[in-house]
């Protein structure tokens, strides 16, 4: 069940909300795609949890250096003004509230902003948390970018997460292929819907009570 926006469109839409001067961490997968769509007229500094600010685009050809990788272990480049630091500093930046925005993928987000994105809890599934829990509670704002429905049609924006939690009440904005939602103490608001959908259409498909 895919919505009106492609994954690239979703990344482009999320990129619009990252302001000039922001320090940003982009998670592995779809969040990483946002870096391709950051408005060129804004100076935005990317953080990678493995110890760098000022991360540049993916390295190609002669640029590839095994000592210079991103959190997904993909070779990247450095931009002028970049800085390297060790892991405790990297996570102090996060946990200490110095990062403006982090963008994460998710299995589920609850209507109170709980996040589940690290473990399915399934039989035989090997748990791997990495920096997910630190990112979820550390950045000033946490964005999630995800398809609104799973392949079998289950809504991923849920009254309560059924997968193991990554963080509690931490997600503020959710970018999906159907709509952009914000989550606050007064509920979930549809900021923008795509493909001519209205709030009532989304309420029907998600089964949630939404604000317009």
């Amino acid at each position: 069940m895919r919505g009106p926006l492609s994954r690239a469109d979703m990344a482009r839409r999320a990129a619009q909300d990252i302001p000039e001067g922001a320090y940003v961490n982009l998670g592995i997968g779809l969040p990483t795609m946002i870096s391709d769509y950051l408005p060129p007229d804004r100076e935005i500094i990317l953080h990678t949890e493995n110890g760098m600010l000022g991360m540049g685009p993916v390295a190609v050809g002669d640029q590839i250096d095994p000592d210079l990788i991103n959190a997904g272990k993909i070779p990247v480049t450095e931009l002028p003004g970049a800085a390297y630091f060790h892991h405790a500093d990297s996570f102090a930046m996060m946990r200490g509230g110095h990062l403006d925005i982090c963008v994460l993928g998710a299995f589920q987000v609850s209507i109170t902003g709980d996040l589940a994105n690290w473990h399915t809890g399934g039989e035989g599934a090997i748990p791997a948390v990495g920096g997910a829990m630190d990112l979820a509670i550390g950045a000033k704002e946490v964005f999630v970018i995800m398809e609104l429905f799973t392949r079998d049609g289950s809504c991923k924006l849920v009254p309560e997460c059924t997968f193991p939690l990554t963080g509690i009440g931490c997600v503020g904005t959710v970018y999906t292929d159907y709509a952009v939602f914000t989550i606050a103490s007064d509920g979930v608001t549809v900021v923008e819907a795509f493909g001519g959908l209205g709030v009532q259409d989304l309420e029907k498909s998600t089964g949630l009570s939404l604000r317009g």
Partner: protein
Amino acid sequence: MISKIIGSVAEAIADVRDGSTVMIGGFGSAGQPVELIDALLEQGAKDLTVVNNNAGNGTTGLAALLQARRVRKIICSFPRQVDSQVFDGLYRAGELELELVPQGTLAERIRAGGAGIAGFFTPTGYGTMLADGKETRRIDGRDYVLESALSADFALIKAHRGDRLGNLVYRKTARNFGPLMVGAASVAIAQVASIVEVGELDPESVVTPGIYVQRVVEVSSHTPPSTQGQ
């Protein structure tokens, strides 16, 4: 005259014992001290507890150590990767104990281990299954989990350049856990691409002061790992 320089990786890790706790630097393969790990494999110590961000990639380095059944327990944040088949098999067979730690908590536990801090309250993981059974506390309206320091008998790390006093500089994102692990281990062993004369490293740019490092061994990046540690 102080000299922490050791002639070979084999000598550098010779006194690792069965049952030792060994911190191993690296994030994936960046900063992984492959030659020291290969020497440890050759040396034969077993029942090791290993602290690393990951749990081995492919079939070399840490993965080879796991494959040889030398490791009893691994403390890490991200074991599951596309090429972590060695770990996956051992874990599913119940032959390897896993302590899973959020990455920032892992880094801070190691930092604390070297800094004389017994434990700390962190907001990371609060309300999740990784905080199950741990003490929690509300401080100024926010909830925190008590996490303990980690220390080790040995740290094996990779740096870029070092001198006989143990001062180290790193290269790009290969720095990662190195500067933390050397503080948390009784014996910190750094493999470096080159050893330089004392005074050559700019004191303003030294990342790890030599006080934290007990042994420095030069490993030429042009030498294939398989010929090291003989």
